């Protein structure tokens, strides 16, 4: 009975997610049609919608009500070599506006980025640490994560966990924390896992929360945070540091002088070179896997939703049937993305733990 109810509510959630995606895309499309004024008239600019969503932006376009678009303005923080620091709201640059010599480049090398015009007319990209849509989403998600985990920790501080079962947030988070801590971290790292478990747990929940928030189609979710290579780069970098800075002597010996026949390393250090290459490919694979999976998930869901609008011109029968198919596939993809959100967080954590475990291995 309960299971059935949960199942139904999950389906409802997925359906509503898809419906909201559709709405979001419709609004995006309307906005795109309004601003870009496509040359081909009423053609749906799927690529524009996709990249408009996947790429970063200086605004957070929430929705449109009638002709009025609701946009959350975000702070722009720039350092120009010529004029120093600048800090203003992105509303100043809306609709191709210029402010203090800065504007959003339309095309070219710096498309959709803030540039300033050099005296000779070329575009110069200032040092840009603006709080963009992704940064803002990152902040919101991180705040959510911190609040959740600290609430959970507070429960443990206020209660005796040995005497009563955890309730509320602690009850939700505890099984996941135990699973990651015991099954992934402890198994992969071994005896000094305690040192790494806060980092790995942070990584797991950071990725999980950002992934899940990315699936939510409306504000404050929907930003493509973990599907952005800068985010995954930093995460992979942290693992790279954790592996290589705290690696023991046995780890470095295995890299520089591995247990292979002598001719593989003496005249020409083939194996050591391959091993050194491996140091960098491991975090690289972490980075690309997470980025590609999440970005592809966003792109597929958006494409499916776009089908509804692309087929609008093909008549009501075609549009209706295609809409049905697109919605069904959308539901399926939303389920899949929920799974992927978890699996990618899990894999990133597990592989990081395995790499750390390898760097802490003692010689037999």
């Amino acid at each position: 009975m309960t299971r059935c109810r949960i199942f139904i509510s999950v389906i409802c959630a997925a359906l509503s997610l898809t419906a909201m995606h559709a709405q979001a895309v419709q609004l995006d499309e309307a906005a795109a049609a309004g601003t870009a004024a496509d040359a081909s008239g009423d053609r749906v600019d799927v690529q524009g919608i996709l990249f408009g969503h996947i790429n970063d932006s200086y605004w957070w376009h929430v929705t449109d009500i009638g002709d009025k678009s609701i946009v959350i303005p975000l702070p722009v923080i720039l350092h120009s070599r010529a004029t120093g620091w600048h800090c203003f709201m992105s509303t100043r640059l809306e609709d191709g506006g210029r402010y203090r010599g800065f504007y959003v480049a339309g095309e070219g090398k710096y498309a959709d980025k803030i540039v300033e015009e050099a005296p000779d007319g070329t575009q110069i990209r200032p040092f840009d640490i603006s709080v963009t849509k992704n940064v803002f989403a990152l902040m919101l998600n991180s705040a959510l994560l911190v609040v959740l985990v600290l609430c959970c920790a507070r429960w443990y501080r206020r209660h005796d966990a040995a005497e009563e079962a955890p309730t509320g947030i602690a009850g939700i988070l505890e099984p996941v924390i135990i699973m990651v801590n015991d099954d992934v971290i402890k198994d992969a790292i071994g005896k000094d896992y305690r040192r790494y478990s806060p980092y790995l747990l942070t990584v797991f929940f950071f990725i999980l929360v950002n992934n899940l928030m990315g699936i939510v189609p409306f504000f404050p979710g929907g930003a493509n945070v973990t599907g952005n290579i800068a985010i995954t780069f930093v995460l992979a970098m942290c693992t790279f540091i954790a592996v290589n800075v705290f690696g023991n002597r046995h780890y470095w010996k295995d890299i520089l002088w591995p247990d292979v026949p002598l001719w593989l390393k003496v005249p020409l250090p083939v194996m050591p070179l391959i091993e050194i290459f491996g140091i960098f490919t491991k975090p690289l694979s972490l980075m690309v896997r997470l980025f590609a999976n999440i970005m592809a998930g966003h792109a597929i869901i958006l494409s499916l939703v776009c089908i509804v609008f692309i087929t609008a011109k093909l008549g009501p029968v075609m549009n209706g049937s295609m809409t049905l198919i697109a919605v069904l596939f959308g539901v399926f993809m939303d389920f899949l993305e929920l799974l992927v959100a978890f699996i990618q967080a899990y894999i990133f954590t597990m592989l990081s733990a395995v790499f750390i475990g390898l760097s802490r291995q003692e010689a037999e």
Partner: protein
Amino acid sequence: MPDSGLLFWMTVIFAVVFGLLAKFGFPVITEMVESRTRRINESLRLAREADDRIAALAKEQERIIAETRKEQDRILKDAALARENMIAQAKAQAADEAEKILNEARTHIEAEKESAIKEIRGQVAMLSVKIAEKILRRELSDDNAQMAFIDRMLDEVSRTDPERRS
């Protein structure tokens, strides 16, 4: 290429999140969970030990009961034996006593008889003497010679008497 602004913010935010969670978040939770795990394991171990102890106690109890029963049997058997002994002893003692009393009575009777016989003999002697005196007063002049003669005669009589009795 990763965007430098995003890279910067991601580094800052992740560092802050990591710092907060690694200091105030996860260690608290994992420690509590681990202490609970330890406690549960400890409780399970104690429960197992208590079970073992109870089983051992039950076995001990059984052993004690069996032992007690055996003891009881032994005591009952001993008591029966003692009773038999006592009765037998009492019987033997009573028999002895009776024997002794009988013997005493017998010797007593014997002695009484002996003394009675002696007395009778004396009496008889005296009577005989008196009779003989009375008879022979006139005839016998010397008492002593007469007495010796009479004694000798009586001895002869009493010597022949027991022969006749037996």
